[in-house]
C-alpha cells in the first residue's frame, strides 16, 4: 500500500514582517531549520552544521570561489549572497541546493511558499 504522507506546513511570519536580508530559525521538535529572505527569494535549509553542530541560522551569507571546467579551471567569485557560511568554522553551503561546497554532502532544503500572505515552510 502506498502511504500518502501529508506534508506539514509551518507558517513562519507574515510576508511584510520578513523582508529581504532577514532570517528566522524554526524548531520543529528536535529539528532546526534556518529560513532566509535573500533579495525577495525565500530559502529554507536544515539548521544544524554537520561538523560541530553550530546553528546555521546565524551564518553569514556571502559568495565563494569556484574553480571548475566552466571557469576553465581558473578561480572565480560566484554565488554572491547565496552561500551560507557556518558560524562555527566556516563550512559553506549552497542555499539553493543545500550542497556543501567542496564536500560530497548535501543538507536538506525545504520548499518555501507564500500562503495567505504568510511565509510558509513545507516540511
Amino acid at each position: 500500500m502506498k502511504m500518502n504522507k501529508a506534508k506539514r506546513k509551518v507558517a513562519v511570519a507574515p510576508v511584510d514582517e520578513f523582508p529581504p536580508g532577514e532570517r528566522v530559525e524554526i524548531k520543529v521538535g528536535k529539528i532546526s531549520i534556518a529560513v532566509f529572505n535573500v533579495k525577495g527569494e525565500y530559502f529554507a535549509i536544515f539548521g544544524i552544521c554537520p561538523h560541530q553542530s553550530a546553528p546555521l541560522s546565524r551564518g553569514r551569507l556571502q559568495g565563494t570561489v569556484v574553480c571548475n571546467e566552466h571557469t576553465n579551471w581558473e578561480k572565480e567569485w560566484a554565488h554572491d549572497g547565496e552561500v551560507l557560511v557556518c558560524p562555527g568554522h566556516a563550512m559553506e553551503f549552497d542555499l539553493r541546493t543545500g550542497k556543501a561546497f567542496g564536500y560530497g554532502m548535501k543538507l536538506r532544503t525545504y520548499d518555501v511558499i507564500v500562503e495567505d500572505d504568510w511565509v510558509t515552510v513545507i516540511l
Partner: protein
Amino acid sequence: MANSKDSIEVKRVEAAFNPVQDQDLDIYGEELRKYTIVDVDVHVDDTLQNMLPYMDGHFGKRLEAVLTADFMGEPHNSLRNMIAHVSWLGAAYDKHPRAKLATKEDLLDRMEYGIIDYSILFPSELLPIGYLPDPKWAASLASAYNEYMVDAYSNVAGVKIAIVVSPKSVEHAVIEIEKYASNSDVVTVSIPDVGVNPPLGDKKYWPIYEAAEACNLPVSLHGIEALIHDNYPLRVAHFPTLMQVHSMGFPFTSMLQVMSVVCEGVPVRYPNLKFCVMEAGITWVPFIMHRLDTAYRQYRTELPALEAQPSEYISKWYWGTHELEKLPKKGDLSKLLDLYQGHDTTMWASDWPHLERDLIAGLMYYDLDDEVRAKILGKNAIEFYGITT
C-alpha cells in the same frame, strides 16, 4: 523526522559576526552537567598591552613600538598577526567569523555559563617566542607575561596558568620555573615549540627539564602555525596557501619535537617529568609511535639511552584534542584511542577563543564509553595538571 505532534518554535535571528560558542548550541541539554570539564587550551589575547607595565628599559620601549602597530584592524595583537597572516592575507576571503580578541572579562563570562569548570590559560601572542631570534627579547617578554598572568589570574576560580619560557634562553627559563613553582595556580610550563632549533631533545634544553621535574611542573608543548620561520620541519615558502601551512605546521612540528625529546633520552633522564602536546590534533599520534618503533629495530644503537621502544615513552605523553579531527564514523575515535593507548592521556581542548576553536559537540559526536568521555573531558587533565578540585 518532524512529525505532526512536534512543537514548533519560530525565532528571529541575526548573523553571528563572532564565531559561535558552546553556549550558543542548544543541543547539549543536561548532558554535560554530570562531567567535570577542563578545557586545557584557552587563551586571552590582550596580554601584550597588559604586560607593558611589567617591562623595563629598552625592551619596554620596544614593546610600546610593537603595540602601536595596527595590523588587520587588530591593534595590540600585532606581534602574532604580523607573523601570522601577512603572506596569505585575504586568501580565505574573510570567510571565517572574525574571532574577537578575548579579554579577562570574556574569559570570566565564558566560565560563568557553567559549561567549563576549569580553563588552562596558554599564551597567545607569545607563542612565536620559540622563533624570535633575539633570546634576550624573548626572555624579557616571557618574564613580563608570566608576572602579569600570575598577578591577573591567580586565585580566579577555575582558572589555571601555564607560564611560558623561551627555549632560546635556557638559564632564564630555569629561573622562571623556580620562581613560580610554589604557586598552586601555575600548573604547567609552556614551551612554544615552533621554529625551535635544534629541536627540543637537545642537551642544551635539559636544564629546563631538570627544573620542571624538580618543581613537579609538567611541560606543555604548544604550537603555532609554522609561519614565517625558516627552520625544519617546514620551510613555509613551499606552501602557497595558509590551509597547507596550518594543516602541516602543527602536527609536523609536534612530531619533530616528540621524536627529538624521546630519541635523545629525555624520558629516561627525567622519568618523572610529564609532557603534553597542544593544538596538533591527535590522528598522527599512532603514526609517530609506530613509525619510530619500526626504525628503532634497525637503528637502536643510535639511541643507546633508551630502555624501551619509543612508543612506550610516547604512550605516557598527554595530548590536547584540538583541532579534533572529524573521523568518518562515530566509533572511530575509540579505535584511534586504542591505537595510541590514549584513554588516560587525551584531554579535551578548545583553543578558545581562536578561530579554529573546537566546540564540545565535536567530541560528543563520537561514541565513547561514558567513563572514557569523562576522562577526556576532565579527569585526565585533573591528573596531568595536578588540579585539586
